[in-house]
């Protein structure tokens, strides 16, 4: 029998290891998700101690007898101050409904503003914020019944709109009259609903999936099944991968290249120069009929009409050479050799 395909027993033996690992990973993921509470740390989050967080404001408000309720799903707003940090994420109709029920509402930088304005310290110039005095404002300007700080803070009825949230952050709360302004805006009532919109609020809008007929959602699921089946079709190999037994092959010149790099790194110019000189002497000796090892300078001088001393200096000089001198030396050795070959 030549068959080597696995039967059910061998498949189970091979698969139980990966299966066990998969189960462990799944279990760990579930446990971690359950144990990990909601994270703290967004900008303008009353629990956050980071510079862009708002723990300081929340603390001040509590000291002044205001109950701060952080929520991501504002429903009980009756008789409270509603503070919306990201009004743009909420459906406008819902926002209008909420601010109608709340005793007063503070919106932070809703779109669209009238125009952009640099962030900076401004004087209030209106009775609304006279108690606070100068404060860090800017961002956008708005239109309203009462307007302060060059129209970056306006109030229409019970709805107050502010163009920049710096006064609520831990970083800027202690500047100028920021703290007083924040308290006067958010501390108007005994209860403050601090509304940080979540994905649940946005789903109240119609999303793309709402627009697809119900039947096609199941169609999409079936499409998933089809994709999995196609993947199974493509993934199944016709027999295993065959490894290639590769022989040991090394580039033969590698040791020579390595030695060249060593010369270079240690700036062994003098050593390299003596090697090059020796090579030139070895090549020239048989051309000139000089026994190997003997000084060919005189013979070269005789043939090329160069002075003996300069030839000998070129071929034998023991003076140390630097990197630049080495390149020049190689060139002049070549020139000498060419001259001898032509002579």
């Amino acid at each position, binding site marked *: 029998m030549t068959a080597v395909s696995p039967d059910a027993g061998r498949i189970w033996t091979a698969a139980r290891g990966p299966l066990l690992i998969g189960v462990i990973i799944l279990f760990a993921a579930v446990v971690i998700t359950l144990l990990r509470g909601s994270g703290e740390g967004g900008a303008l989050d009353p629990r956050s101690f980071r510079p862009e967080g708002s723990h300081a404001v929340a603390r001040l408000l509590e000291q002044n007898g205001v109950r701060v309720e952080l929520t991501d799903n504002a429903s009980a707003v009756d008789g409270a101050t509603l503070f919306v940090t990201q009004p743009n994420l909420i459906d406008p109709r819902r926002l209008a409904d909420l601010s109608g029920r709340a005793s007063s509402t503070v919106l932070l930088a809703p779109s669209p503003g009238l125009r952009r304005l640099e962030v900076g310290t401004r004087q209030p110039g209106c009775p609304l914020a006279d108690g606070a005095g100068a404060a860090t404002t800017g961002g956008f300007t708005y239109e309203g019944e009462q307007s302060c700080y060059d129209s970056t803070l306006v109030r229409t009825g019970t709805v107050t709109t502010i163009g920049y949230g710096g006064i609520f952050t831990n970083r800027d709360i202690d500047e100028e009259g920021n703290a007083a302004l924040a308290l006067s805006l958010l501390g108007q009532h005994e209860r403050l609903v601090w509304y940080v919109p979540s994905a649940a609020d946005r789903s109240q809008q119609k999303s793309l999936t709402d627009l697809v007929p119900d039947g*096609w959602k199941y169609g999409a699921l079936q499409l998933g099944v089809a994709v999995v089946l196609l993947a199974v079709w493509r993934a199944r190999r*016709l027999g*295993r991968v065959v490894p290639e037994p590769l022989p*040991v092959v090394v*580039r033969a*010149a590698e040791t020579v290249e390595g*030695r060249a790099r060593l010369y270079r790194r240690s700036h062994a110019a003098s050593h390299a120069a003596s090697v090059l000189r020796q090579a030139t002497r070895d090549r020239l000796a048989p051309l000139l009929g000089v026994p190997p090892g003997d000084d060919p300078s005189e013979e070269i001088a005789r043939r090329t009409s160069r002075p003996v001393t300069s030839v000998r200096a070129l071929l034998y000089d023991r003076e140390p050479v630097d990197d630049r001198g080495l390149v020049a030396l190689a060139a002049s050795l070549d020139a000498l050799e060419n001259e001898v070959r032509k002579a």
Partner: protein
Amino acid sequence: MALTGRAGLLALIGVFVVGLLLPSWQGILVLFGLLVLCVAVDLLLAGGVRRLTFSRAGATSVRTGEPCVVQLTVHNPGRRLRGVLRDAWAPSAGVVADRVAVDVPAGGSRVLSFELRPLRRGDRTADRVTVRSHGPLGIAARQGSHVVPWIVRALPPFHSRRHLPPLLERLRELDGRRASLIRGAGTEFDSLRAYVIGDDVRSIDWRASARSPDVVVRTWRPERDRQVTIVLDTARTSAGRVDGALGGLPRLDTAMDAALLLSALASQARDQIDFLAFSQQVRASVPRATLPVLVQAMAPLEAELVEFDARGAVSEVLRRAGRRSLVVLLTSLEPSMEHGLLPLLPALATRHHLLVASVSDPAVHAMAAGRGDLEAVYAAAAAERTLAERRRLTALLARHGVDVVDALPDDLPRALADRYLSLKAAGKL
């Protein structure tokens, strides 16, 4: 088990069925159930792959780079089998098309032919034969593998055989079998024969002519029945890849090529060849080698990353070669030789004539000629140092009466053969 593209296609069609007719979980489940049923039916009715039997026939050796055919016979004892068969080989076996459609009737057999074109020297072994047997619906297939062993030995390519005709011509000239203007250059006295017009008068044997009615000349022939021991170094230096006309090849392959050319020539010259591949121990040994046997012995040899044991190699040569012979050592001139081979030379040189053939590296020569910037000059110095080392070794070897052939990979086989012929002409064997 394996699915086919049709299973996925059916599921895709199911998207419309679910979307338009059955938009519910139940719809998806019903379709999936149907698909599972089809797959089960297909698997049940597909021909079995486990009980197939296989046998092979065809080529067992081929020259590297040339095509050969291996047949695979499938015998099917069960139901009719339709599907795909893959005969898997390692990539270097160079199978032209390793998967074929098969249709084997119940109880019948089929012979499938696979063309191989090995890319690399050595033993190429067959891996598994895998069969995928489709069911009648073509949705699912049974799949299974079988081990059907077979080995195709890819022989050394012997590229240098193109040099053989001119070398044989020279050998014949040496032999006197071909008329030439120069006097037959043989060195061994062969026989006496009657003078014919055109013979060199200097070859007349006067003493014999005096005893005979005719003028008699001496004839000469080159030495024959000499022993040539080829020692191939398969240790670390032979692994070095050197670029030649055929691309980068390990020194070992070039050395093999040279050894083959030398053996072909020497066997024509009626010398006896003894082949030995050595690294730390004997890797291959062919006494009284002929070319086909030699080629078979060389094919599976690969370089090993160990130091060449010169002492072991020399003692092996001394043990085997009884009478005086030409020992050709195919290795690389490396500084390590000074401590390995040189101290052993006196023992070897008194009894045999040693010829060292070495593959030199064109890359080193190119580096030695490098000029221009600092990097190139340092590379040139390093290369010159290596070349000087080789020259010094050559001189040292020559002092011990050793012949050295140090040539580029493309020239080495020819250079070695030429040296052999000139040694023969000089009667030094």
